[in-house]
């Protein structure tokens, strides 16, 4: 039936669908049995039956998997044929200045653990794989959307205040003197002292809305992160 693109019905970047071999009622009872797919992911619609659409994922970490999703309450589809994917996204991170640019926007406040930073160079940023931990629910609806840096390992571009070597986009600047949650943390993992004056804080929702539809064309990546010292 052809290519379709997943919409963003929950406005948080993720939709849970039912993987092949699992009953929809089981996923309803335990969403962890489902398959989480990111907004804009390209799928091949195979058939529509009994109010459900059956498809195969065509890109990203779930490429090749078959799944299904029900039609929405009005009988409409979460899978649309309008292609909103755009060209590869380009982000730039200055480690020393703690600045991040995305597209034509920036600089914004971002950093990487001083003692184990993202290596200097150009790295692919992957299509989001699955919803990540929700440490900052008050800061962004898209905060569970993380983009893996490169194609192996566990470094990500994501929202955060503590870094272990990711490209960490700050929602705000932590103060270990007044905020008990940061007591005992090293300056290195907090990226402190931050350069003055501090860059403005990016809205992570806006970063995601920019980056999630971007495609590099390799079936894996949304674009590239260029890291300079």
């Amino acid at each position, binding site marked *: 039936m052809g290519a379709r693109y997943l919409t963003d019905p929950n406005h948080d970047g993720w939709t*849970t669908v039912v993987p092949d071999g699992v009953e929809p009622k089981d996923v309803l*009872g*335990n*969403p*962890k*049995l*489902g*398959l*989480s797919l990111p907004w804009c992911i390209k799928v091949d619609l195979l058939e529509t039956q009994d109010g459900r659409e059956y498809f195969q994922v065509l890109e990203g970490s779930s490429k090749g998997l078959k799944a299904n999703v029900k039609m929405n309450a009005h009988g409409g589809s979460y899978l649309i044929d309008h292609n909103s994917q755009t060209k590869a996204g380009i982000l730039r991170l200055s480690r020393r200045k703690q600045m991040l640019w995305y597209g034509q926007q920036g600089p914004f406040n971002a950093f990487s653990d001083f003692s*184990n930073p993202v290596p200097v160079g150009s790295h692919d940023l992957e299509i989001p*794989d*699955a*919803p*990540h*931990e929700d*440490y900052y629910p008050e800061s962004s609806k898209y905060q569970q959307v*993380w983009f893996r840096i490169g194609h192996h*390992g*566990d*470094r*990500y571009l994501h929202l*955060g*205040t*503590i*870094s*272990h*070597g*990711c490209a*960490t986009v700050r929602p705000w600047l*932590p103060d270990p003197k007044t*905020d008990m*949650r*940061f007591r*005992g943390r090293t300056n290195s993992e907090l990226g402190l002292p931050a350069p003055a004056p501090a860059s403005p804080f990016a809205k992570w929702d806006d970063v995601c809305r920019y980056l999630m539809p971007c495609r590099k064309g390799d079936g894996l990546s949304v674009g590239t992160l260029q890291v300079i010292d």
Partner: protein
Amino acid sequence: MSGPYKLLIKRWLLAVLLGFFVLGSSAFAQAVLVQLLSENKPLQPAAVYDCSSITTELKCVSAVADDTAHLSENPKAQILPRNGKIFVRKKKLLGDEALAFYIAAERALLDDPKYNKLELLNNELDLPPSSERTVLIAIYKRPRQSRTTKLVWLFAPSANQKR
């Protein structure tokens, strides 16, 4: 049935129902099988993952990402002190062969995950000293289910080896 037995059954049912509703059905099924204790106090895991499978790098395959390498980035993460031996309490239905423990330096998980298997001897684990924050994981296949549970605990560097 006599009074004391009825009371016991009622209490047991109440505990099960409370556990089910407070923790949720899935979490309750996982939470009761393995518990770690140090100095007679339970050690709270930083994460419990419900996995359809486990990769060769010991990552959980699930509808949510396995963030073992990032759990201490949570400002509210509970990072446990290293206080000698750790006692493992597990349900009898979980055989020794179904349960395995592994440790790794948290930092190493970012680029090149290398776990070492930790032997369970007389229901005790011995965490080796380390100058780095350590991740301890327990992995077990749930009896009579196709799912696997992965529990993660975070430990601070050894007191005399902090960097």
